[in-house]
């Protein structure tokens, strides 16, 4: 008597048979038939052909049969919309049923039928059910609003259901509150700016009360909603924390993690010296540890989140190292996460324990895990200096095992250790060299080559070793080729006498026989360097390398802050901001941690305004692809590794940098201005350069504007306040805000660079895409000193207008690429056109008159400037500051008519007539110009200048 009988089929054809049974008079037979239909449906068979027959069974007082029919309806109504209408009457009737179970069932099912026509009929019953006396019906109806919103958002708004839903937050029944919150959150997610969840202390209080009484799932929704609130002060924050902490002891891990999220966020507002702060820290550890004793899937999510928590507040779990020790039968995804956290928690106090464990792991079976364990040993060495020696000897032990992949990983990490502690462990080089032949992975080969090149003077047969690699040069991966090139050049600079042939060989291999542009260009640069100025070459190639930083692969602070606000969500599992991957979240709000007591006013405690800020920055240039051709030879190599910055980067960076035209120029001239990083004059590639360096010739198609320059002197031009152009979130911690100004006839780009990352930034360079007016940097970006974390620097970049021209949309759009030692970042900004008004823009009266007449009237634009209370003379003076010259003025009927002219850098003249009536704050400006495109931007400039 099991349900498996429903799966048996007969010869005659299943559908036919079922049809007959469904239309049977016997109730029992009907029910059995519907069950068979459902059974077929569950395994994915198409039984939609039975739609009318099944719907006929709907009018019954047998609840089970009714439920089964409803199940069927939900699945197939979409494919049979016309038939589904047949069911509407029964639904409407059931919504009036005295039994609340049936009322709820009806409204619930109706919401699941995703057919537009049905939704119209749903509104009335739903409205009733939202006000039903029975809380069970109300809570079901609350969810139904979310369903309906998903089908037809406009309808829900028009019918006022959202307001009713908001009212339900104050419902007396906690279950209803929880469901209302859940429904509102879901709706809010698809409308990020709708401000649906209007959180204020009163609603928060209601939510906190409901939190104690509703089901576990409701608690999750409420906690997630609470996490979006920003308390007014630390007192409120503390009181919310106090009411949330009991949730840490809940059996449901999702409740626990949501509570952790709320606490982690609100903790930011508590002063650190508060006793409660310490108590709270202590309370957070046990629940996190408990999560690790749950099922592996839960452990995984918990570990990903703990990884974030440990980075933000390492003190919480610093004594809990042991719970992260790996058991051999943990699933691999748990093992890898545990390992990651172990390294983060490693400190001088527990390093011995950690190392012993890591050594144990390095002998396990799973290759991925073993590799990561070996890497972890290297990371420990770099992180805890006292342990470095022990780590190195552990690694040597592992190399002795001769297990191929262990040896290769070990060599990669030893290279990093050399970078961190130069001239300390070089004695092990001999052992490493013994394993040269067993290396078959590019990363390990590259690491080994780097070591040989770096310590060439101590390795007697360095030339032989490198030569042996050279034999199969063309079969190597790019990584190895680049490394080999650099290593041999290093060797040559160290032992010039005996390696001349070798270096010749590698340079010709790299430049003549390779079609990899990176390799070829690097080869050329070395070649040129070596042939022009060997001393400079030595200084460049053998330069002191910066030490690598202690902590590797930390998440950028700004991103971490955002992720902490998303604890427990998918974002926290992927360690990416939700905007990066959540589909359908149109413009997800960036969440920020509330400003803590010590972080200054730069962090607004108000999430709403934080969101506004994130909306403000201009769009980042969308695709790299389009730019590739346009940007002048800017090095677009992707960041080499996510792991510890490889020592190769010095060499690589070198190459990258040298590609930037001006830099090469200055290098060639032997003029090493402190840092080689200043090479940034992308704009004007020297003529002597090989073809591959020269700028793409401008298309000239849009040569609407002639190139031209202006010279002049007056001061006092208006410049707008700085706005954020490149938010730190998008640029690995580099924030750029800036503005444009015209000072003493020179267009300037004034920028503020802020380093919000953990590491020092160097090697800044800037470049523009082709733009409407040919703007280009007139000199390199002068950031001479490295930018250390949290440092801010003001930079002024003079611009000229002789760059390549391409018409942009909008006209004054400027796409900029900024490079530093980390990566290349793109942003775009708009410049006020007034900075292009040149100083000799004053037209002769006669010429003005003639030109005004000459330009046809249909290219005359007219606009109004409102709320301007300047007199005509004051306005005229103000405009003159921005190179808008008044040529003549006349007064007609109490109206001042000002005739003005201005000239753009590319020689375009703009003529205007401005009418000012005393006492009337509205100015009318008529504008004539041969290039009508500029009119609206000129108008903007008028507005900006006159109102500031």
């Amino acid at each position, binding site marked *: 008597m099991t349900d498996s009988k429903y799966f048996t089929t007969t010869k005659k054809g299943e559908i036919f048979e079922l049809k007959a049974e469904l239309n049977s008079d016997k109730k029992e037979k009907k029910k059995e038939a519907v069950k068979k239909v459902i059974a077929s449906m569950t395994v994915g068979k198409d039984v939609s052909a039975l739609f009318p027959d099944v719907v006929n069974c709907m009018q019954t007082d047998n*609840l089970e049969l009714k439920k089964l029919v409803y199940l069927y309806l939900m699945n197939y109504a979409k494919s049979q919309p016309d038939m589904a209408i047949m069911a509407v009457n029964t639904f409407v009737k059931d919504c009036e049923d005295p039994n609340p179970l049936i009322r709820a069932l009806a409204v619930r099912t109706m919401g699941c039928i995703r057919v537009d026509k049905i939704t119209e009929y749903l509104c009335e019953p739903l409205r009733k059910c939202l006000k039903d006396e029975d809380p069970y019906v109300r809570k079901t109806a609350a969810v139904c609003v979310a369903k309906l919103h998903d089908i037809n958002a406009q309808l829900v708004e028009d019918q006022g259901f959202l307001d009713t839903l908001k009212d339900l937050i104050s419902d007396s029944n906690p279950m209803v509150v929880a469901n209302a919150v859940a429904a509102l959150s879901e709706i809010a997610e698809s409308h990020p700016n709708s401000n649906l969840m209007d959180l204020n202390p009163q609603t928060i209080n209601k939510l906190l009360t409901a939190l104690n009484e509703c089901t576990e799932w409701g608690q999750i929704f409420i906690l997630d909603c609470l996490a979006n609130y920003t308390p007014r002060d630390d007192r409120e924050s503390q009181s919310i924390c106090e009411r949330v902490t009991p949730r840490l002891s809940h059996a449901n891990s999702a409740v626990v993690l949501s509570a952790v999220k709320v606490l982690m966020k609100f903790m930011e507002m508590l002063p650190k010296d508060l006793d409660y702060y310490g108590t709270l820290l202590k309370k957070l550890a046990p629940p996190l540890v408990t999560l690790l004793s749950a099922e592996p899937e839960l452990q995984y999510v918990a570990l990903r989140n703990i990884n974030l928590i440990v980075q933000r507040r390492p003190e919480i779990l610093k004594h809990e190292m042991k719970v992260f020790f790996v058991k051999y039968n943990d699933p691999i995804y748990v093992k890898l996460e545990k390992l990651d956290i172990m390294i983060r928690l490693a400190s001088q106090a527990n390093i011995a324990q950690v190392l012993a464990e890591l050594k144990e792991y390095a002998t396990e079976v799973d290759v991925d895990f073993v590799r990561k364990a070996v890497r972890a040993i290297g990371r420990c060495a770099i992180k805890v200096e006292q342990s470095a020696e022990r780590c190195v000897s552990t690694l040597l032990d592992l190399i002795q095992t001769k297990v191929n992949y262990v040896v290769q990983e070990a060599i990669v990490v030893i290279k990093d250790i050399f970078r961190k502690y130069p001239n300390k462990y070089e004695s092990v080089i001999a052992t490493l060299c013994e394993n040269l032949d067993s290396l078959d992975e590019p990363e390990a080969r590259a690491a080994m080559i780097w070591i040989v090149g770096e310590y060439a003077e101590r390795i007697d047969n360095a030339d032989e070793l490198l030569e042996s690699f050279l034999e199969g040069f063309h079969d190597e991966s790019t990584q190895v080729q680049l490394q080999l090139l650099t290593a041999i050049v290093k060797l040559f600079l160290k032992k010039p006498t005996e390696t001349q042939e070798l270096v010749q060989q590698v340079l010709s291999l790299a430049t003549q026989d390779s079609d990899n542009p990176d390799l070829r260009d690097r080869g050329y640069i070395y070649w040129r360097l070596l042939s022009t100025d060997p001393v400079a070459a030595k200084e460049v190639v053998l330069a002191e390398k910066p030490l690598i930083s202690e902590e590797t692969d930390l998440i950028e602070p700004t991103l971490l802050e955002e992720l902490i606000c998303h604890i427990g969500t998918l974002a926290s599992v992927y360690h990416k901001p939700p905007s990066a991957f959540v589909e359908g979240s149109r413009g997800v709000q960036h969440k920020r941690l509330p400003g803590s007591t010590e972080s200054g006013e730069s962090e607004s405690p108000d999430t709403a305004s934080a969101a506004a800020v994130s909306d403000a920055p201009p769009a980042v240039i969308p695709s790299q692809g389009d730019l590739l051709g346009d940007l002048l030879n800017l090095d677009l190599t992707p960041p080499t590794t996510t792991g510890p910055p490889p020592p190769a980067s010095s060499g690589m960076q070198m190459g990258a940098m040298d590609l930037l035209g001006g830099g090469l120029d200055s290098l060639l001239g032997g003029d090493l201005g402190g840092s080689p990083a200043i090479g940034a004059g992308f704009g004007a590639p020297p003529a002597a350069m090989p073809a591959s360096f020269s700028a793409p010739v401008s298309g000239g198609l849009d040569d609407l504007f002639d190139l031209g320059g202006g010279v002049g002197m007056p001061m006092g031009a208006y410049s707008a306040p700085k706005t954020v152009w490149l938010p730190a979130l998008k640029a690995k911690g580099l924030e750029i805000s800036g503005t444009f100004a015209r000072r003493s006839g020179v267009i300037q780009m004034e920028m503020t660079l802020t380093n919000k990352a953990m590491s020092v930034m160097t090697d800044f360079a800037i470049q523009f895409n082709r733009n409407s007016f040919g703007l280009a940097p007139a000199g390199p970006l002068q950031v001479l000193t490295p930018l250390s974390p949290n440092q801010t620097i003001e930079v002024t970049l003079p611009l000229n207008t002789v760059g390549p021209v391409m018409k942009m949309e909008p006209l004054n759009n400027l796409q900029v690429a900024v490079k530093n030692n980390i990566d290349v970042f793109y942003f775009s900004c708009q410049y006020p056109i007034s900075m292009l008004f040149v100083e000799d823009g004053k037209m002769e009266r006669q010429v003005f008159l003639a030109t005004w007449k000459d330009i046809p009237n249909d290219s005359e634009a007219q606009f109004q400037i409102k709320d301007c209370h300047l007199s005509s003379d004051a306005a005229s003076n103000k405009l003159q500051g921005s190179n808008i010259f008044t040529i003549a003025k006349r007064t007609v009927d109490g109206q001042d008519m000002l005739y003005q002219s201005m000239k753009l850098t590319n020689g375009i003249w703009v003529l205007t007539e401005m009418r000012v009536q005393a006492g009337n704050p509205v100015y009318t400006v008529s504008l004539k110009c041969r290039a009508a495109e500029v009119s609206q931007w000129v108008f903007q400039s008028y507005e900006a200048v006159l109102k500031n």
Partner: protein
Amino acid sequence: MIHSLFLINHLGDIFLEKHWKSVISRSVCDYFFEAREKAVDPENVPPVLQTPHHYLISIYRGKLFFLSVIQTEVPPLFVIEFLHRVADTFQDYFGGCSESVISDNVVIVYELLEEMLDNGFPLATESNVLKEMIRPPNILRSVVNTLTGGSNVGETLPQGQLSNIPWRRAGVKYTNNEAYFDVTEEIDAIVDKSGTTVSAEIQGVIEACVKLSGMPDLTMSFMNPRLLDDVSFHPCVRFRRWESERILSFIPPDGNFTLMTYHISSQNLVAIPVYVKQSISFFEAGSCGRLDITIGPKQTMGKTVEDLKVTVHMPKAVLNANLTASQGNYTYDFTTKLLVWDIGKLNPQKLPNLRGSLSMQTGVPNPEENPSLNIDLKIQQLAISGLKVSRLDMYGETYKPFKGVKYVTKAGKFQVRT
């Protein structure tokens, strides 16, 4: 919210699908199958997968994958917890959670899934509430139903649903009123080669079977509540009371439930009940190895260790084992490379020993990894942490219930490295 659910058996067949919103084509599971292929072992499939349009969150229970599809940002733990709850409910209803059991009860399964989730929001997940809405199958009822035309769907709204104590139904009546509690502690430990404890912690759980009439209000107090600093409770436990007095005060659900779980961390000293002396070695020449394992009692608090079992996951190269056990039986499974030694009761006078030779595949280099030993054991009448219940009182009702507390200690993930 949770969009769809697919149940997938170990062969990779989808044998049940349920959609709470629009229907999602089962081709979405292809991404999962890809990951499943890559992971080799089913246990190693990552629980959260990203596909171009959906997220797949899965759990692996009883050789089945419960795979849910979600489309918007949802807390993954919420989904995983829910999936486990679904599996628990099947277990509870049908006494098992295998493919055959689910196919046998497919209609009830479908009704249950519909009742548990509405539009992706959990609706009723408490077993008490569910059972009032959809009655679990049993033979007698199915006979009666066939005769009378009755159904297994409850006609009225479960009362517990909306009260402040949704976990308990009203009007419970028993002739024998009884409340039993099982305190079970599992030791998770890693012991290294030399016998030193690398880490040891205790996962404790108090399971209850409460069959009391009316609305009983229970309190449970402990001799040494200070042991418990990391606890999680069933929603019925009043947290404030625990915070202030360290007393468990609650109105229990009807029937079986987990009252609380607790965790005693490695910072406390955890007693390790047995020690293991072992040597497993592989010889370069002759392609063979030796194995010698002895187990003895360590901190058993004077109780007997029972159901002792040692499992060794041997390296791939081990073909066979030729061993002698001084007590119990051993088996070696060639395909899974699992050596299982079932010892039984531990006799402190005569320590059980397993020794002999291992035959290895010839021409294969010696295994680099050392196999770990997994220990299973049970000690009755003892909670190894020392936790003891001192009192159990009932208020709110007048009858005298039968009460009982049972303790047992087990080995959880107890590993000895070699």
